[in-house]
């Protein structure tokens, strides 16, 4: 069975909610919608305090090409456009809407009927995706229309759908593939048309045999779509790892992109959102969020409107357990611990993981014994122990030479370290600093 060639770990899967059908979370009374919930420039607010908005109405417009539109997830009145604390306790610009009923904007088809035919041209498809504000829903939140706009001189050869969901605990993509398989595959054909290719692969790890069987059956009705079962290994859902696993091609180090090896990768939930945007005119205002944790009464998959406070999801899953030690936005490997449970669900939030005090606590770090376990675990072929040390020494030039910018922050190094060193903490800081230096240098360099 296929997998990526280098590094990786296999953490306990803990897919507690994989058998739970998607439920619809009751509409929240108040939502906070951050203007920056994607990579790139923040969106620019188009509404002001006191404005009435309808569900699905555009409330913030993409700030540049590398940005995304944002739509109202509920209907009601805008009560504020102000700085609100996010999950990390940092204040960021958000639009607050108080709900009044649930009135939808015109032109959105909310019926369940499957629309297979798509007569739009590639340009029109990309324009629709841009209009709907779709971004990568696996967590990286890269604007999808940017990904689909193939730069001049490069050529896409295949579309790869990321149904890997290698992150422990999370099951939102799994449930989407099972319950919206038909729509998802139509979404694949739309993506293939948008980038002008006739081959698509759907990569799914073989711990989801039901999804593999279901999608294989549907894909058989279409030409050029192939489901590729993959060996379970984290971080297979990383874009570069998935390309290597499916096609055997290695994406060169930055600034090279997946398109340089002819691949366009799109997450499964994103593909479903693409279907909804193009065929039904539905902007990205809701998503499936897994709420999970070993001590949680009822782990669930909830169809949640964007901007819903995380606390509402936890309440729907039976409330915060007594021994909760940490609430993570995302899964345990890549997720971000939260300090503010009133912070909103955003486009990139695929799950909320509640961990017990005991599971969450890090163990006391000791000395590095240069065992190089982190080096063998690194899927990017880096030397995490060295990068971590050099960050502590602030040796930025050395870090840049050692390709710290290739780090995908998957956390394999830290999870295998027998000395419990906070490797990723340091590497991430080093990566941020080095990238800042590269940007500063580019800005200072004379323009050609």
């Amino acid at each position, binding site marked *: 069975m296929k997998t990526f060639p280098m590094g990786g770990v296999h*953490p306990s899967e803990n897919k507690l909610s994989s058998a739970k059908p998607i439920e619809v979370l009751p509409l929240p009374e108040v939502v906070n919608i951050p203007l920056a919930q994607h990579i790139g420039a923040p969106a620019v607010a188009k509404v002001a305090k006191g404005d009435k908005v309808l569900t699905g109405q555009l409330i913030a417009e993409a700030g540049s090409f590398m940005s995304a539109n944002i739509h109202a997830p509920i209907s009601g009145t805008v009560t504020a456009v102000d700085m609100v604390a996010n999950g990390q306790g940092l204040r960021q610009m958000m639009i607050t809407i108080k709900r009044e009923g649930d009135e939808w904007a015109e032109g959105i088809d909310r019926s369940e009927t499957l629309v297979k035919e798509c007569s739009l041209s590639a340009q029109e498809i990309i324009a629709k995706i841009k209009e709907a504000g779709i971004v990568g829903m696996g967590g990286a939140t890269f604007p999808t229309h940017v990904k689909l706009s193939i730069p001049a001189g490069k050529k896409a050869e295949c579309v790869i759908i990321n149904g890997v969901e290698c992150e422990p605990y999370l099951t939102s993509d799994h449930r989407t593939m099972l319950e919206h398989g038909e729509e998802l595959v139509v979404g694949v054909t739309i993506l293939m048309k948008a980038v002008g290719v006739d081959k698509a692969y759907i990569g799914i790890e073989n711990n989801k045999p039901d999804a593999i069987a279901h999608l294989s059956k549907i894909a058989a009705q279409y030409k050029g779509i192939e489901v590729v079962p993959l060996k379970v290994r984290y971080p297979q859902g990383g874009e570069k790892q998935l390309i290597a696993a499916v096609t055997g091609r290695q994406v060169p180090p930055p600034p090279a992109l997946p398109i340089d090896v002819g691949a366009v990768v799109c997450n499964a939930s994103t593909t479903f959102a693409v279907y909804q945007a193009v065929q039904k005119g539905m902007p990205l205002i809701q998503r499936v969020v897994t709420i999970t944790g070993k001590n949680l009464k009822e782990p669930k998959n909830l169809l949640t409107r964007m901007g819903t406070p995380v606390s509402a999801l936890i309440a729907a899953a039976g409330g*915060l357990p007594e021994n909760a030690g*940490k609430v993570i936005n995302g899964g345990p490997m890549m997720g971000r611990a939260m*300090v503010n449970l009133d912070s909103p669900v955003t486009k990139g939030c695929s799950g909320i993981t509640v961990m017990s005090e005991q599971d*969450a606590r890090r163990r006391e770090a000791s000395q590095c014994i240069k065992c190089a376990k982190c080096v063998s675990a690194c899927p990017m072929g880096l030397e995490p122990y060295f990068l971590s040390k050099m960050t502590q020494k602030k040796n930025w030039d050395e870090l840049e030479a050692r390709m710290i910018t290739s780090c995908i922050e998957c956390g394999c190094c830290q999870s295998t370290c027998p000395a419990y060193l906070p490797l990723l903490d340091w590497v991430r800081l080093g990566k941020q600093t080095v990238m800042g230096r590269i940007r500063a240098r580019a800005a200072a360099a004379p323009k050609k």
Partner: protein
Amino acid sequence: MEVLLYTILTLCVLGVLAAVILYFVAQKFRVEEDPRIDEVEKMLPGANCGGCGFAGCRGMADALVKRDDISELFCPVGGGDCMKAIAAYLGKAAAEKQPEVATVRCGGTCEKRPRTNEYNGAKSCAVAASLYAGETGCAFGCLGLGDCVAACAFDAIHMNPETGLPEVDPDKCTACGACVKACPKMVIELRKKWPKNRAVYVSCVSKDKGAVVMKACKAGCIGCGKCEKVCAFGAITVENNLAYIDPQKCKLCRKCVNECPTGAIKLVGMDPLPKEPKAPAAPKAAPAAEKVAPAAPKAAPAAEKAVEKAAEKAAPAAEKAAPKTAPAATKEPSHES
């Protein structure tokens, strides 16, 4: 015996030959260096702290000798006297700088700024700042993990375990600025050093709105602007909900200290001004020993009372929120097996 003799002789000849070669090579490739550089290096303190912007004292000495205009160069450790002596030696005009001292502008002690979560990641302010707002509700204040302490080459800054904040020893501080650079929250500032280490400064860097500050910390600047109004020298400006006292304009008149409703303006090395006649027996700061005077706690103009009440109201709310937000904030892979 003969073997021994020849060996010694050969070695001697070889040695002399090598010495001669080395002598000529050294003459040929000699690096001409201004002997004054050595002299100037000796005059510099030799701390190699990097406070001047050069990698070490030798780099600074080199620049001092080679540049015609040395008014931009300054050794914070040696100070004005050292620079004057060097300038006199080199026959150039020295930069004149008033003495400065590192000042920690955060009053969020453990008591005044309760913890809302627990940080469990790498013990570094830079790492914590890259992850989230911090262990308290204030996203601007000191993180308390001691990057400034680690950066100090003069043993002049230490964490106070009781307050959780760093404290500067003004007698040891050389104003090299290493801690200022190390602090990711930009809490530390180099401010004018007054005689007897006196100082008046706003001990807060929070740009949050007043209500948000009050909720997170009882010692924060709420940007009310009272200090700005009372200052006779135009030294105080309030911008982005935060007051700043310009050390160049401030005359240490201390009027603002009594005005501040939250005690965010710190007074060091001096007694506070006498309060309103109503409260003549206001608690006086122990003179020089206790450096930070308790700022205006009791003698209360009406507004101050109102603020205190607001703080009381805010407190239970914060407590309620505490268990909710208890989870430690780090982004980390779990170690569960």
